[in-house]
């Protein structure tokens, strides 16, 4: 993570929040395409919440379908992107727990996951770090506790403007001015040798 390299470009925070709020408002009026865009936008986050909770791919798919169908009954009370993200995260976690406690098969921790570096394949975002750096990062994640792996995996998919709304829900500590780094990210940075100011020695 070299500070001089370009940061991955993302839509600016207010821009994205406004866009989601507009989509929510259109979906409330029955716009199917707007609802579809919301589904496309948030489903990857929900997928990783369900999978990080130990569900099989089939169970994770069922949970996502249930969550989105339930959203329809709650959509009218939602105004902002943050409220939407918060509701989706909470409901997905709850549904995932429900499926697990119903005694359906629960996967053992995937110990194989971190042995091979995932292939980002063509079409992934521009590479701002080298393969060696990615490998180091992946191995470092694999050395964290299961709890930290789950937490980092999920928060990595939370859109930045929605952090504050979902941080506490996810077990991320919240300081006086918003979410703080927390034990898991601090541990990861220590493993990678990144100092508190974000620079590398």
């Amino acid at each position, binding site marked *: *993570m070299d500070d001089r390299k370009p940061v991955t470009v993302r839509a600016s925070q207010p821009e994205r929040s406004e866009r989601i709020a507009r989509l929510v408002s259109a979906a409330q009026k029955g716009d199917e395409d707007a609802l579809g865009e919301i589904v496309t936008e948030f*489903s990857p986050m929900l997928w990783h919440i369900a*999978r990080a909770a130990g569900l099989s791919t089939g169970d994770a798919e069922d949970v996502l379908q249930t969550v989105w169908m339930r959203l329809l009954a709650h959509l009218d009370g939602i105004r902002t992107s943050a409220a939407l993200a918060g509701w989706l995260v909470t409901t997905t976690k709850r549904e995932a727990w429900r499926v697990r406690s119903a005694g359906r098969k629960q996967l053992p921790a995937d110990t194989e996951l971190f042995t091979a570096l995932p292939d980002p394949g063509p079409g992934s975002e521009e590479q701002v770090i080298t393969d060696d750096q990615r490998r180091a990062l992946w191995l470092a994640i694999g050395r964290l506790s299961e709890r930290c792996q789950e937490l980092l995996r999920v928060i990595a998919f939370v859109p930045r403007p929605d952090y504050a709304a979902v941080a506490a829900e996810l077990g991320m500590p919240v300081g006086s001015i918003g979410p703080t780094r927390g034990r898991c990210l601090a541990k990861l940075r220590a493993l990678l040798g990144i*100092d508190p100011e974000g620079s590398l020695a």
Partner: protein
Amino acid sequence: MTHSDAGGRPSAEQSLDETDFRLLDEIRELFQAADPMPADLPERIRFSLALRDLEVEVARLVEQEAVAARGQEQSRTITFDSDSMTIMIRIDANRDGTARVDGWLAPPQRREIEMKTAADSLSVASDEQGRFAFARVPRGTAQLVVRPAEQEGRSVVTPALIL
């Protein structure tokens, strides 16, 4: 990503900085590559949501199991639960590549039952034992809708499933 030889320990109490966000961006890319969401899942979810204007009761998938059948094709039984009823279906493969779906409603009741598929929708009625059957359903995404017994009742819908 070299190792610092000095430097203090990164503090957990600090606010998230750009480095944290970049790490999270990379973590997202890695998990996206390691365990991708099925590419067609959002499309299937949109299919399920197309019933949104109905006043519906959502049935949850509670159990799914493969059962041994004659021949190579396996059968599946799937159970859905909603507040007002349980729907159990058994899916078998027909020789012509379509699927046969036998179902039971509990408590037993006569209802109109619709099977929505990508192409169109099929409709049958359950008997007083709550049994119903779709002899030939095209393979692909499908969703069951149990119509209300009375005008003002609610439909019960299942999540979309792949036949």
